């Protein structure tokens, strides 16, 4: 094989390998980052540390809560109040009700979404059950808490913010063993 072929072959193979690594190791985190910045998929940021309190009492925003169960998730799961009206900047606590109706100990994870997309960046959670997975023993009930603040910089066009949670059964994939729940 000629040397010129060999160097070209090496370069092209390197390109192929690089593209593979790009797809597996760069694209997913890049996508996550992109989602967080732009609010694609209505993802919310992680835990928020309130820095200053500036409540905009001139403005009222309705916040709605929606719950959904993914397939194979038999728990009862719903918000204890469907909607609240808050001023931006004001901290508010709400609860979701969860009931493990099965005879097994289970672990759940709630995945949040905010609509409209452009509100996602302004929805801050100072405490949320979605930060951790939620173990419930067989038949156990719980009130799951959420504390949030709407950022006063929330775009003026937004009058209603909808926060939804989808509850997934992660019993099989969690490292938390069933014995720890009991």
């Amino acid at each position, binding site marked *: 094989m000629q040397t010129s072929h060999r160097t070209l072959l090496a370069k092209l193979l390197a390109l192929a390998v690089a593209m593979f690594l790009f797809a597996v190791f760069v694209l997913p985190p890049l996508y996550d980052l992109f989602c967080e910045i732009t609010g694609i998929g209505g993802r919310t940021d992680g835990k928020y540390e309130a820095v200053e309190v500036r409540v905009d009492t001139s403005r009222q925003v309705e916040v709605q809560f929606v719950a959904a169960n993914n397939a194979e998730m038999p728990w009862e799961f719903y918000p204890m109040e469907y909607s609240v009206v808050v001023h931006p900047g004001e901290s508010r606590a709400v609860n979701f009700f969860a009931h493990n*109706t099965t005879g097994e100990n289970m672990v759940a994870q709630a995945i949040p979404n905010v609509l409209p997309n452009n509100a996602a960046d302004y929805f801050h959670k100072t405490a949320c059950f979605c930060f951790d997975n939620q173990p419930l023993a067989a038949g156990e009930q719980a009130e799951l808490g959420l504390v949030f603040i709407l950022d006063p910089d929330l775009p003026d066009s937004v009058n209603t913010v909808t926060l939804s949670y989808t509850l997934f059964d992660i019993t099989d994939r969690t490292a938390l063993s069933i014995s720890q729940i009991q």
Partner: protein
Amino acid sequence: MLKRAQALFLRSLGAVLALVYVGGANSESAASQLNMPQGVTEVSQAAYDIHMIMMWICTVIGIAVFGFMFYVMYAHRKSRGAVAENFHENVLVELLWTIVPAIILIVMAIPATSALLKVYDTENADIDIKVTGYQWKWQYEYLGEDVKFMSELRTPQDEIYGREPKGEHYLREVTEPLVLPAGKKVRFLITGNDVIHSWWVPDFGVKRDAVPGLFTSAWAKTDKPGTYVGECTELCGSGHAFMPVVVEVKEQAEYDQWLADKKAAAAEYASTIGKQWTFDELMVKGEEVYNRSCAGCHAVNGEGIPGVFPALKNSVIALGPVVEHLRVVVDGIPGTAMQSFADQLSEVDIAAVIHYERNAWGNDVGDITQPIDVLNYKQAK
């Protein structure tokens, strides 16, 4: 002159299309066979308008380009004695046909953008409805009203498999349509339960993917009461073609009445759950539920699809202890296509279908499963 020629052309094209339509006519209106529906909402109208603008621009460009091409094919053929010239570039012409289409595109982008802005205007809705895609049905939940129900295909398997003549509304009928009030802005919060579905109502111009773990929104507002039929448009498994969307838009007063009835029925249902059903009543009810919700995988004859979906006929579960049977139907089997039916079927439906599975196709357990048993099972856990 040009205007008149254009009008003449439009009219003759319309005549041609009408002829084509007569050739392919069935029972629907002319437009619905050949073109996008204008629909009944602002969004569907905007989609229709931009569609027609694009179609006409493409038609005009197409006629010009192909017209020139056919002229060349006629005039410059060797058999007519044409001798080839040898030119092979012309910078001016090449620049022109790069720049002119670019300008046309920029002009087209303006109405295209304003149409899209309408699609995204989901603020200030009067009613919020959660739409959830399941394999293979839709669940509608009226948020804040405590009303939710499943909407699934009502066309019997016998019609699908040609054992009975097909009805007028073949594959366009559901057990319970989504009901909306006319003149109110409705926001749909769309999500998926298992795989990705897509909720489409052409007359509303609403098509949104129902992705598990993700909520997206769309909206509709129409003043025209009526029945609007849509489809699932994202491949979601073997029942993909069998989960239509049917929406009934009612006048406000009728809608209020419907909603009140719906709530009353739910309350009544809760109070009559303790009723004792007879063996035969449950068999009839069970067969109906089974054919609607289970036969898609386990087949009408209970033999399943070998290698894909297990048979229930002579199966360990159907002939074994009832509590195991309840567990499978109510909780599902994780990691398989057998999902939990706890939210999808009522206690009566679950009891009936379990009863049916234990006593049909030669299965003869002979026991009776009552709705209260299902409720007790759910609560005992």
